[in-house]
C-alpha cells in the first residue's frame, strides 16, 4: 500500500506535519521501536530538505511485508554536486534556515545512516528525488498490548426491535446489528451509556447485579446524587438516608465530592499544562481519548476519575461504590478483588433500598454532604453527551480550543449524576434533587488520587499482530471503502460504509451484507 503526503516549500510552521501523519499510520500497523525511530529521522530530514530548498514536494510511503520505502520528490533547485552534498558539514541552506538550527550539512547523511538502501537522483533546475528503504524484518517481535477492556456491558439481543438507533448513537461505532440482534466490538467499546440511554427496549445494561455485602457495619456508601434524586423523585431524601442506615451503612458520601476535588486540582494545574486541560471526570472519556483521540492524551489530567478515587479514599474501611456506567463498573471491578471495596449496580442498590424507605422518616439520623460547585472561569467549557463530546474532542484535536483552560467532559448527558441507569432525564434529576434535598452540610474532605498507570493509546483497533497482514488489510479496507456507495445507511448492520469495509476485511461480515453494492463489492 502507498501513503502520500504533500509538503509545502518554505513553510516552516507546517514542516514536520507529513512525518507526524506518517508516524500515526505506522503506529496503526504496529511499526515501533528502532524501525519507527529510523523512519522518523529519515522522513523528517527529507521533509525539511523540501521545506528549506524547494517550492513543493511529496512524500510517499510504500509498505509491504518486508520493507518501508520512503520516497521524497521535490520541485527545487536540484543538487549540483551530490558527492559533496552527502559529506557531513556541506550545506547550501539559507541564513534563515541556519538560524533555526538547520543547514548543518547533516540532513542527507542522517537519511543515509538510517536507511538500509539509499538512493538519490537530482537534476539541476528541476528537482531532487530521494529514496530511503528500511527493512522491517529487523523489527522486534510485535507484542500487541491488549486494549484494557471497558466492556462491562450486558446485552439482551432477544429484546432488540431493530430500530437501529444504538448503531448510530455509539460514539465509537462499536455496535453491529446482525440477524440475532446487536453485538459489540469489545476493543472499540469505551463503556459509556450512549446505547443504554438510547435503547427503549432495555437491550443494554450492566452485568448481573452484584449482591450487597452481608456485613455493612461501619461501611461507607458512595453514590452520585442523581441516584438519590431518582429514588426520591421529589419526596424527602431523608427517607432514603434512613433506608441507607437501615441497610447497615455508617456513612453516605456523594461522588460529586471527588468531582469537586478533581476540578480543584485541575484548576491549580492549569498554568503549565496543555490547553485545553481535560480533567478525567469520566472513565469513558479517558477510554475515548485513548482510543479515538490519542493526540489529546497529553491533555488529560494525571489523576484517577472521581469514582475510582473515592474507592481508594478509605483504606481501612469497607466501601460500597455505585457504578454509573459500564466503564466505571469495569474499572472498579478490577480493584474490588478484596473484601474492602464493593461495586454496586444501581438496580441492586435501588432494589435493596426501596422496601426500607416506604415508611415515613422518624428523624435525621444520617447526614448528607453538600458539594459546593464552582462555576469556574469563562475559559472553562463543560460539554456532556456523546454527540457533543465527540465534536468538542475533534475541535480540541484541531487546535480550535487552545484558548479553553479546562474542558470538562462527560459522555453521559448531565454527567454521572444523570446516568440513564438511574435517571430518566438530566433536567428532571436536577429538579428532584432540589426538591428532595433537605439536609446541608459542607464537606471538603475528598481528595484526588494520582494514576498508577500512565495513559496510553488503546491499540484494540490494530488490524493484525503481523505487520504484513496489517498493511494488506489497511489497503484492502481503503479499496473497499471507495467501492461502497457511501450512504452510511446501516442496512448492513454497521454504522457506516468505512466500518462495514473493515468488518468485511476482518472477516466479521460478508460483502453481500451491503444491499446496494453486493454485486460489485469483493474484499
Amino acid at each position, binding site marked *: 500500500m502507498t501513503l502520500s503526503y504533500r509538503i509545502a516549500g518554505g513553510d516552516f510552521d507546517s514542516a514536520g506535519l507529513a512525518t507526524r501523519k506518517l508516524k500515526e499510520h505506522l503506529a496503526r500497523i504496529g511499526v515501533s521501536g528502532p524501525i519507527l525511530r529510523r523512519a522518523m529521522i529519515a522522513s523528517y530530514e527529507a521533509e525539511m530538505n523540501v521545506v528549506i530548498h524547494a517550492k513543493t514536494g511529496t512524500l510517499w510511503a510504500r509498505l509491504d511485508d518486508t520493507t518501508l520505502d520512503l520516497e521524497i520528490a521535490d520541485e527545487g533547485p536540484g543538487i549540483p554536486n551530490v558527492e559533496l552534498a552527502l559529506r557531513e558539514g556541506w550545506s547550501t541552506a539559507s541564513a534563515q534556515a541556519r538560524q533555526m538550527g538547520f543547514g548543518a550539512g547533516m540532513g542527507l547523511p542522517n537519511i543515509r545512516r538510517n536507511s538500509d538502501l539509499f538512493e538519490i537522483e537530482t537534476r539541476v533546475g528541476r528537482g531532487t528525488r530521494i529514496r530511503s528503504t528500511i527493512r522491517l524484518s529487523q523489527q522486534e517481535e510485535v507484542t500487541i498490548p491488549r486494549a484494557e477492556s471497558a466492556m462491562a456491558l450486558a446485552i439482551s439481543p432477544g429484546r432488540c426491535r431493530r430500530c437501529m438507533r444504538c448503531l448510530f448513537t455509539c460514539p465509537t461505532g462499536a455496535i453491529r446489528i446482525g440477524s440475532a440482534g446487536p453485538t459489540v466490538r469489545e476493543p472499540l467499546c469505551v463503556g459509556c451509556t450512549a446505547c443504554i440511554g438510547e435503547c427503549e427496549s432495555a437491550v443494554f445494561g450492566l452485568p448481573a447485579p452484584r449482591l450487597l455485602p452481608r456485613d455493612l457495619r461501619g461501611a461507607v456508601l458512595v453514590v452520585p446524587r442523581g441516584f438519590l434524586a431518582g429514588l426520591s423523585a421529589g419526596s424527602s431524601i431523608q427517607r432514603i438516608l434512613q433506608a441507607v442506615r437501615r441497610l447497615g451503612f455508617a456513612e453516605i458520601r456523594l461522588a460529586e465530592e471527588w468531582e469537586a476535588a478533581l476540578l480543584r486540582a485541575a484548576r491549580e494545574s492549569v498554568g503549565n499544562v496543555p490547553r485545553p486541560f481535560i480533567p478525567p471526570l469520566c472513565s469513558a472519556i479517558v477510554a475515548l481519548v485513548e482510543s479515538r483521540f490519542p493526540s489529546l492524551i497529553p491533555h488529560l489530567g494525571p489523576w484517577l476519575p472521581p469514582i475510582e478515587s473515592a474507592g481508594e479514599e478509605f483504606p481501612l474501611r469497607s466501601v460500597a461504590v455505585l457504578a454509573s456506567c459500564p466503564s466505571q463498573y469495569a474499572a472498579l471491578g478490577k480493584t474490588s478483588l478484596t473484601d474492602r471495596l464493593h461495586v454496586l449496580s444501581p438496580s441492586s442498590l435501588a432494589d435493596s433500598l426501596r422496601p426500607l424507605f416506604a415508611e415515613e422518616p422518624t428523624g435525621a439520623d444520617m447526614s448528607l454532604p453538600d458539594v459546593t460547585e464552582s462555576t469556574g472561569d469563562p475559559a472553562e467549557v463543560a460539554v456532556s453527551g456523546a454527540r457533543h463530546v465527540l465534536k468538542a474532542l475533534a475541535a480540541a484535536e484541531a*487546535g480550535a480550543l487552545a484558548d479553553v483552560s479546562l474542558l470538562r467532559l462527560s459522555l453521559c448527558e448531565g454527567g454521572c449524576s444523570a446516568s440513564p441507569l438511574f435517571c430518566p432525564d438530566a433536567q428532571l434529576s436536577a429538579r428532584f434533587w432540589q426538591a428532595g434535598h433537605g439536609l446541608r452540610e459542607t464537606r471538603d474532605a475528598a481528595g484526588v488520587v494520582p494514576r498508577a498507570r500512565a495513559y496510553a493509546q488503546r491499540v484494540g483497533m490494530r488490524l493484525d499482530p503481523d505487520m504484513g497482514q496489517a498493511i494488506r488489510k489497511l489497503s484492502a479496507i481503503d479499496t473497499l471503502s471507495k467501492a461502497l456507495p457511501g450512504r452510511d445507511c446501516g442496512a448492513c448492520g454497521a454504522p457506516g460504509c468505512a466500518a462495514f469495509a473493515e468488518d468485511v476485511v476482518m472477516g466479521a461480515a460478508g460483502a453481500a451484507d451491503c444491499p446496494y453494492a453486493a454485486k460489485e463489492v469483493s474484499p
Partner: protein
Amino acid sequence: MDIHALARTIRSIEYAGSPRENREITRVHASNTMSELIAHAASDTLLVTALDNCQLIRVAELMDVPGICLVSNAPPSPDFVAKAAEAGTTILVSPLSLEKTMCTLRDALKLADRTST
C-alpha cells in the same frame, strides 16, 4: 532520574509540561543543530540546546522526547511554550551555559545511576 528532580540540579525554571509526567531521563544530549538533536533524540533523553524554534517541539513530538532544556537563562517565546504545552513536552530553562548545563546534568545522572545500583 525523574525529569523534575533533574531540573532541580541545575536550578532551572520549568515553563511547560504536564504535572503527570514524572518521566525518567537516562541520557542528555546537547547541540545547537537540529540534525544532531534528532539523531540523538529518544524517549529517555533530555535535549539541551540554545535553539528555541518551534521545529524543536515537532522533533520532540516525533521522537517522543520528554523534555527540552534551554540554556543561558534565555526565556522561550510564548509560541514555543504554547506548542510545548500542547505537545506535552516539558521545557526547562537553565541559568547555566550549554556546556555547564550539560556537565551538571550528566554528573547528576551518573550520581543517580551509582546510587540506584
